[in-house]
């Protein structure tokens, strides 16, 4: 593991350059690049409840490493609940319950005795409304999770802060004043700060729960542009109610629906191109063409 970490650190700058040139190639064949990639995380028969009320029913899916997967569906279909099962945040809701298996690199995160805090160091989350820590500066915000990893030396912290902010496309805008309070930034900048904070701890997977829904269109576009670069290093799962966004940024898309009394089902899951141009389920087709939701 130590080797992986140092190699990541050494690769930061050259990788950024590679990322730029790879973007064009990636756009040309969105599904092809990830077709043979290993599985990052897979869900098997996942269901979730709030007390007696079931919100997610029996979802199974496999998500490939370094892909961007979008979860779409009408509001209330359980997408947020489902994604919160992936980093064990759902269990904070009152009377919450999860059944099923979620395998991260082959190990079940819900296995008996697994510490949720450790899961969350491997699977990060960016929330709908940007939530930078108000009592901390920009640099302190990004470095917030580093202490859990034992990163002590000031220089290493500084390096990681810089590389995270660069990956989140925020470095140029804030590099002159990293001591400014995190909440002094604009909404879009705050969200990129939260992204930087999340990737600073180098998780395997980054979950994003409607990260742009509280932002203006310009800020939204900036974050969408990040996705390709982030996917080089992380596996991204993004919940979005914006279909165009899903079509723009994701490699694969999953459509969820609460239908015929069964809440939170997975209706269809396919490479994005296929799902949007040739949906197999009528309900998917109806949703995409705007007939409901």
């Amino acid at each position, binding site marked *: *593991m*130590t080797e992986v*970490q140092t190699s990541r650190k050494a690769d930061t700058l050259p990788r950024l350059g590679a990322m730029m040139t790879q973007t064009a190639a990636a756009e040309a064949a969105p599904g092809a690049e990830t077709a043979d990639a290993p599985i990052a995380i897979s869900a098997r028969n996942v269901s979730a409840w709030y007390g007696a009320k079931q919100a997610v029913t029996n979802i199974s899916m496999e998500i490939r490493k370094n892909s961007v997967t979008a979860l779409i569906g009408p509001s209330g279909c359980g997408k947020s609940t489902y994604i919160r099962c992936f980093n064990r945040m759902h269990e904070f809701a009152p009377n919450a319950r999860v059944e099923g298996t979620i395998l*991260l*690199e*082959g*190990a079940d995160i819900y*296995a*008996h*005795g*697994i*510490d949720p805090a*450790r*899961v969350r*160091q*491997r699977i990060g989350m960016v929330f709908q409304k940007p939530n930078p820590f108000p009592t901390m500066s920009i640099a302190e915000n990004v470095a917030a999770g580093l202490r*859990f*990893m*034992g990163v002590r030396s000031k220089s290493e912290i500084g390096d990681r802060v810089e590389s995270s902010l660069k990956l989140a496309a925020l470095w140029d805008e804030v590099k002159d004043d990293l001591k400014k309070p995190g909440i002094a930034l604009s909404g879009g900048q705050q969200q990129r700060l939260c992204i930087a904070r999340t990737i600073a701890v180098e998780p395997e997977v980054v979950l994003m729960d409607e990260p742009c829904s509280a932002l203006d269109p310009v800020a939204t576009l900036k974050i969408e542009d990040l996705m390709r670069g982030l996917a080089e290093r992380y596996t991204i799962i993004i919940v979005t109610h914006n279909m165009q966004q899903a079509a723009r940024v994701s490699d694969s898309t999953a459509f969820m629906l609460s239908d015929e009394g069964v809440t939170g089902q997975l209706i269809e899951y396919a490479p994005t191109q296929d799902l949007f141009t040739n949906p197999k389920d009528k309900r998917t087709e109806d949703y995409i063409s705007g007939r409901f939701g």
Partner: protein
Amino acid sequence: MTTPNQPWALGRTEGLYLRRKAVDRIMTGAMIVAVALAVIPLFLILFYLLKEGIPGLSLSLFTDEPNRPGKPGGGVHNAIVGSAIMVGMALAIGVPVAIGTGIFLSEYGQNRIGGYVRFVIEVMAGIPSITVGLFVYGLIVLRQGHFSAIAGSVSLAILLIPIIARITEEMLLLVPRSLREASYALGASRWRTVLRIVLPTALPGIITGVMLGLSRIAGEAAPLLFTALGNNFYTTDVTAPMDSLPRRIYIYATGPYDYWHEQAWAMSFILVAVILVISLSVRALFGSRVTVRQ
């Protein structure tokens, strides 16, 4: 507690992780210890009130006057009646002023002047009761030349006002705007609206406030020491010094006689029992004692 084979080894941070987990467990333990430290004194006090107080209860305690110091027996009839009279008078004086202030703040006070008044009331709530007693001493006792139950009631009323005024304002503000608008739309004047519509709607909450204030001043002794003084005899003359339960508990607690100590416990039991009954019925009727207004 087994340390399971955590599949995602975090390399150099294994030791750190165990330390972090240990700190988390220690602090959780500290919190539980704190809860114990907070709750144990309460149980001890209640326990001793029952243990020492109940044996001292007797009919004569309620019906007889105190014997001369040193002679066991007797009762505290004068103190019980005195407390009842003075608390009653304090309510009579304080409640109208407090509710009036509460109405002023809710109807006219959403501005700078209201801000000042509200601030004064908040500060008034924190004034030591002994200084209130001395204030009334100078205001009334010195001028009249003698201690009196009236002076005692005035000092209790001053303590009562901030408590009831704050709650009244909160309760009045909780009444939905739509109710007031409906009344105004019918052509009713302001005072009619408040007195006939708003106040009755907020009444349950205001009564809560009054009961809470009552239970607070029932136990006050410091202000009474210099205003109503005390009286070893039964009297209902409000212009004369009057005895009260808290004050008699104070005298008996520091006295040399065992029977005084027993009666002090018994009186404390009665006092706390009354306060608890009031507090419990308020809670049963209206839920938690803290309300948050957005």
